[in-house]
């Protein structure tokens, strides 16, 4: 690795130049000014590419590499060594902006992160161009940010793996209960309580499965692993499929579920993602619909496909309507505490991934209508960005 020494010990001629080009009083003023700086600072001779004065904090770092010492070099925010000329000259030019530049300064003892600000000093009496360089120590801040990023990535990875671990036993349980129910249907007489509790088991496992699927989806969103796999899809057909899965729940809640999709509405969409959108909207409508009829409409215009889920339940107040699309938010009061507050957040993320929009018209005591509008043209699908570098999806 190339070594870029921030400062070398001033040669006598540099100090001499200061002495000869500036009066003693001016130098003393500069020194006093420099020593008043609470952070490491130096006066640099830009043309010579070396520091000519350092304050005490700068000596303590040290910003001055001892003569002949190795292991002192600077890197930029990408980790590349800053080379190609004297570092102070580089900083005197690059750090003149209002926010300066950020560098990492490596010494054999430790690494520092500095925000460097450079300000030119007005030349006097033919003196060389001098620059004041101040070094704001942001090491602790950057280290804390890196730790936080690491902790967030670890949390999201754990979230994703844990959710997958939940899915397998849930699927096994779901299939076992279906098998039991299937077998009871073949028997001549079955006690009513057995059928009832098998139905309860089925519904609760379905509900848990939806919660786990939502957790997994939200971890994909948080990890920026959301990736669309679009295909030519008839949304009317999809609405029929999803609605059929809600028939048991609708019957248990005595909620009429009306499907209004008179003709095919075809576009290029990710089937699984839009299944999740419809599932989450219908689950919400079922949970907060107070047993009143729920209507799922599918309509198409030449440019847009429109999905509408309308309920006549408790409705959502104006103060809650914006925040319910945020993660972990629920409308209050009267809305179930056990809801994770992920459903609508996921709906919005998945719809926006399709370049679509979701809107809400609602009034307390009247009900809610969620409207999803999706473009019908082919999407340019962005690739998922894997920021954690962790394992991908597993079956």
């Amino acid at each position, binding site marked *: 690795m190339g070594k870029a020494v921030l400062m070398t010990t001033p040669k006598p001629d540099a100090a001499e130049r200061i002495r000869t080009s500036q009066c003693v009083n001016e130098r003393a003023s500069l020194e006093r000014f420099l020593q008043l700086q609470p952070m490491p600072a130096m006066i640099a001779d830009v043309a010579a590419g070396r520091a000519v004065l350092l304050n005490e904090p700068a000596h303590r770092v040290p910003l001055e590499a001892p003569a002949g010492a190795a292991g002192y070099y600077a890197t930029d925010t990408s980790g590349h060594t800053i080379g190609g000329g004297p570092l102070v000259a580089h900083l005197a030019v690059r750090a003149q902006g209002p926010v300066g530049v950020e560098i990492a300064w490596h010494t054999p003892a430790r690494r520092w992160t500095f925000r460097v600000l450079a300000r030119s000093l007005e030349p006097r009496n033919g003196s060389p161009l001098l620059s004041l360089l101040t070094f704001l120590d942001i090491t602790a801040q950057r280290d804390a940010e890196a730790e936080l990023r690491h902790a967030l990535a670890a949390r999201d990875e754990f979230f994703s793996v844990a959710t997958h671990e939940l899915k397998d036993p849930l*699927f096994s349980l779901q*299939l076992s209960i*279906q098998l039991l129910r299937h077998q009871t249907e073949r028997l001549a007489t079955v006690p009513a309580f057995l059928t009832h509790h098998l139905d309860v088991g089925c519904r609760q496992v379905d509900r848990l499965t939806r919660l786990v699927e939502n957790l997994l989806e939200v971890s994909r969103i948080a990890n920026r692993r959301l990736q669309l796999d679009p295909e030519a899809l008839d949304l009317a057909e999809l609405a029929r499929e999803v609605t059929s899965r809600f028939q048991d729940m609708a019957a248990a809640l005595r909620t009429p579920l009306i499907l209004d999709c008179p003709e095919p509405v075809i576009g290029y969409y990710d089937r699984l993602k839009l299944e999740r959108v419809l599932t989450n909207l219908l689950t919400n409508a079922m949970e907060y619909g107070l047993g009143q009829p729920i209507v799922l409409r599918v309509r198409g215009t030449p440019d847009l496909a429109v999905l509408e889920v309308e309920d006549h339940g408790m409705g959502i107040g104006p103060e809650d309507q914006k925040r319910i699309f945020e993660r972990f938010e629920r409308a209050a009061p009267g809305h179930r505490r056990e809801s994770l507050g992920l459903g609508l957040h996921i709906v919005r993320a998945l719809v926006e991934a399709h370049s679509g929009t979701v809107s809400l018209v609602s009034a307390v005591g009247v009900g809610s209508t969620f409207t999803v509008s999706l473009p019908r043209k082919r999407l340019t699908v962005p690739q998922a960005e894997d920021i954690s570098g962790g394992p991908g999806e597993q079956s």
Partner: protein
Amino acid sequence: MKTVLVVDDEFDLTGTLRSILEGEGYSTQICANGKEALTSLEDCKPDLVLMDVMMPVLSGFEVLRSMRSVPALEGVPVILMSAVPPSVNRDDYGWQAFLRKPFTLDALVKTVETLIGKP
């Protein structure tokens, strides 16, 4: 009797799949991983393979690739099961149906019947 080879590393799940298929009148053989499956395939010559994708030792895709290189097994239909859509090209591996977990009992029975008929 038509035989289905069920391959999955989840013990309870293979037990349930066995009960479902045997309840419908099919015979079953169970394998816990892809390597076991390759050995069983030669012995039991199943009419259908119902196989998970992500498994220890050998994945479902690797088993498929091996199957397609053996003339005697080339024509055996395969149903793959996974929680995520296949990441490889169907034409390169040649499975006949894909069931996304979680699937229903009805979907499983219907898919099996479509491929090999009733027992």
